[in-house]
Each structure stands twice: as structure tokens, then as C-alpha cells.
């Protein structure tokens, strides 16, 4: 049986982590493990007052790790993230699942993490250290401490693209998730479920460096799976993912960005 330790703040909870502990945020990941008798931990550490909500800091927008998908949908300033949050789970999940938790959600979950990677977000730890999303996702299994918030710059209107490929409508988990930030000179193109964690498609980014056009989209699609390593799972095979990733990248880019 697990023990539950409740601290006031995320910083205090971070100090209380340690051997055999798992941090409980919205519950969608950890309570599932508790229900199924996961023996990998015997302490649940939680914070009564995690950082929840949207503010501004020197980086731009700051989103508390305890902010739920429903909170994002209720916030007009984050309208560019509404297509992302709105397709995660059903309403009940969206009232529980947090931005912080999504950073650790393994395939086929992690749509918000893919979007934040495309948006070049920074992960702010409880101790104040920050990590770029790309490094955070590569190291997340070994990351120590707790996530306090993420920060990001608001994209220019129409610069953020998002597409979730799901077989179940209106809500289903992703076969592939695509997100892109098209900004002058340094576009970012991200695939979810095409590697162990959301990952940038650097070759596609280079192809789109001169902007989005019919030719650059074609060039990006031709190389978009370079460096990615999709695997088989219950939703689709690695072969299928690699085959349709260019199709969905093209459709996403042709359909225009969100603002």
C-alpha cells in the first residue's frame, strides 16, 4: 500500500521526493498506476498548491505545471493551444490532466509536450533551473526534481500549426501528432509518436527555412521522417506511421496555422 504525503508547494514537494516516491499531479498517470498495484513506488508525493494558471514573465507566457487542459481552454490568451488541449481526452480528463503531467506522458500520449516542443518552450524546475523542451524530453526519464511551470513566447498569429491523427472521433489517442512553428528562418517541426518522445524533424525544418510554399512543403515532406524512429504499437505499425507522416505534414501545412 502506498503512503500519501501532501506538501504545500511544488518546491516543498520536490524536497520531499526521493526513494520510492512518485509525484501526483492531476492523477491521470499516477492514479492509474496505483489502481493497478504498481510496485515501482510506495510513496505518493503531492502539492496542495501547485502552480496553476497562466501569467507573464520575462520569457513571455508562463503556464504553471498544475494548469489543466480545461484551464487552457478557458483562457482566451492561449487560443493557439486550444486545438491541442481540446483534443486531449474527454471533458473529465481535461479537468484533471495537467501541462506538467503531459511532459512526462509516454506514447501514445504527450500531445501538449509535442506542441510545447514546437513552440520552443522552456521547462522551469521547482529549483529555478530551466531546460529547453528538446533537452528536457530527451532526458525526462532521468530528470530530477519537479516541474514548476513552462514558459514560451506567444507565436505570431497563424505561425503555429497542429494536427492530431486519431482513428476515434471526436476523442482518441494519437497515431501521430504533428506540431510546427513557422517563423522566419528557423521553423520548428515536431512529430509525436514517431520516436520514444516528441521529436523535431530537423530535415523538414531545413526544407521549410525559406517559408511555406508548395515547393518547400513538398521538399519537407520528402525528408520529414529522417532521424525519426517510429515503432509498432496497438494503434499502428512503424511502417504505417512512416508512410503517412509526410501526408499529414502536408495536410497540416496546407490547412494553415492557428492563432
Amino acid at each position, binding site marked *: 500500500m502506498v503512503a500519501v504525503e501532501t506538501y504545500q508547494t511544488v518546491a516543498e514537494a520536490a524536497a520531499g521526493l526521493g526513494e520510492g516516491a512518485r509525484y501526483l499531479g492531476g492523477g491521470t498517470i499516477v*492514479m492509474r498506476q496505483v489502481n493497478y498495484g504498481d510496485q515501482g513506488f510506495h510513496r505518493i508525493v503531492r502539492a496542495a498548491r501547485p502552480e496553476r494558471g497562466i501569467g507573464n514573465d520575462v520569457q513571455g507566457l508562463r503556464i504553471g505545471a498544475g494548469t489543466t487542459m480545461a484551464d487552457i481552454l478557458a483562457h482566451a490568451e492561449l487560443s493557439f493551444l486550444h486545438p491541442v488541449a481540446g483534443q486531449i481526452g474527454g*471533458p473529465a480528463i481535461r479537468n484533471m490532466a495537467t501541462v506538467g503531467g503531459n511532459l512526462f506522458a509516454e506514447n501514445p500520449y504527450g500531445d501538449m509536450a509535442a506542441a510545447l516542443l514546437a513552440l520552443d518552450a522552456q521547462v522551469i524546475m521547482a529549483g529555478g533551473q530551466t531546460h529547453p523542451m528538446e533537452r528536457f524530453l530527451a532526458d525526462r526519464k532521468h530528470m530530477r526534481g519537479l516541474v514548476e511551470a513552462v514558459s514560451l513566447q506567444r507565436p505570431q498569429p497563424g505561425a503555429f500549426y497542429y494536427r492530431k491523427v486519431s482513428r476515434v472521433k471526436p476523442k482518441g489517442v494519437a497515431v501521430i501528432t504533428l506540431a510546427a512553428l513557422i517563423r522566419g528562418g528557423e521553423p520548428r517541426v515536431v512529430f509525436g509518436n514517431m520516436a520514444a518522445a516528441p521529436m523535431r524533424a530537423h530535415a523538414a525544418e531545413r526544407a521549410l527555412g525559406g517559408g511555406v510554399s508548395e515547393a518547400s512543403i513538398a521538399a519537407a515532406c520528402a525528408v520529414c521522417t529522417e532521424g525519426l524512429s517510429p515503432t509498432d504499437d496497438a494503434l499502428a505499425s512503424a511502417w504505417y506511421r512512416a508512410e503517412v507522416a509526410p501526408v499529414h505534414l502536408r495536410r497540416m501545412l496546407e490547412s494553415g496555422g492557428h492563432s
Partner: protein
Amino acid sequence: MAKTPVTFTLNDTEAALFVDPGASLVDVLRRGAGDLTPKQGCAQGTCGACTVLIDGVPHLSCLTLAETVQGRRVDTAGGLADGPALHPLQRAFIDGFAAQCGFCTSGMLMAAKALLDHNANPTRDEVIEAISGNLCRCTGYEPIVDAILSAAAQMRGQPALQQGAL
């Protein structure tokens, strides 16, 4: 291991229970409070049968740590009816044959109530979105969507919608 005292409002009644550490809310509602309306389906957050409202907002009670509802309000399908008078949603589900085995029904009702509580006149797509986290294995969903739209119409004082005719 020490149990944790939890008090909360369950469907207008004060509930005071001792809960095991790590216990889920659905477990405590069913075994502790004796309210069998929330169903434990998957215990993974993927079926919606355990949907309850916490402070008016839908949550999955299987993924809710029971002790976190301390001081809060929990509404289940067990509180929908007013004595023998069924809630319009319950009436519409019966009239519209919106249940077969009934396992999803409690969760569907609460997901629908959460919608109608803040949107008296939802579109069909809004109803579909509202129940998108709730699985039904029997009906094909259409009778459920129709029933929710019908209940909404009735609650607005309009006659019940014609259910899909054979």
C-alpha cells in the same frame, strides 16, 4: 497503515469517511459511502463509467485520490433524482432507450449533466464532445445523444424531441 479522515458533501448529504492511503474516489464512494452509481470500469481513465462531478465539474473518480475531495462537493448519478421524481436526463434516457446493459449510464448522465448545467441549449456536436470520454458498448451512441438533446429541450420547457423513429 493509518487511514485519512475525509469529509465532503455527497449529493447534498455530508459524508465523513476514513479512507485508505492511495484509495481512489470511486472505491470510497462505492465501498465507503455505499453509492454504487459510479461504476468502476477500466480504472485507467479510459472508459468514463466512473464520471462524477467535483464542485460541479466532471472528473473521473477512478483517477481521483479520494482524500483530495476533502471539503468539496461530489455529485453522482445517485443524487440526480428528487425522491421518486427522476431527473429529466434520466427520464429521457429511459424514454429514448439510451441504455442497454446500463454500465455506462451513470457516467453518461453525469457527463451530460455537466454540459446542461452550463449550456441549456447545446448543439449536437457539443453533446458529442461532452460524452466523448464515455464509452458505450451497446447503443452506438445515437440514442444517448438524442436523449441528452431531448432532456435539454424539456428542461428549457420545450416538448421532448422526437426520438429516431424506426
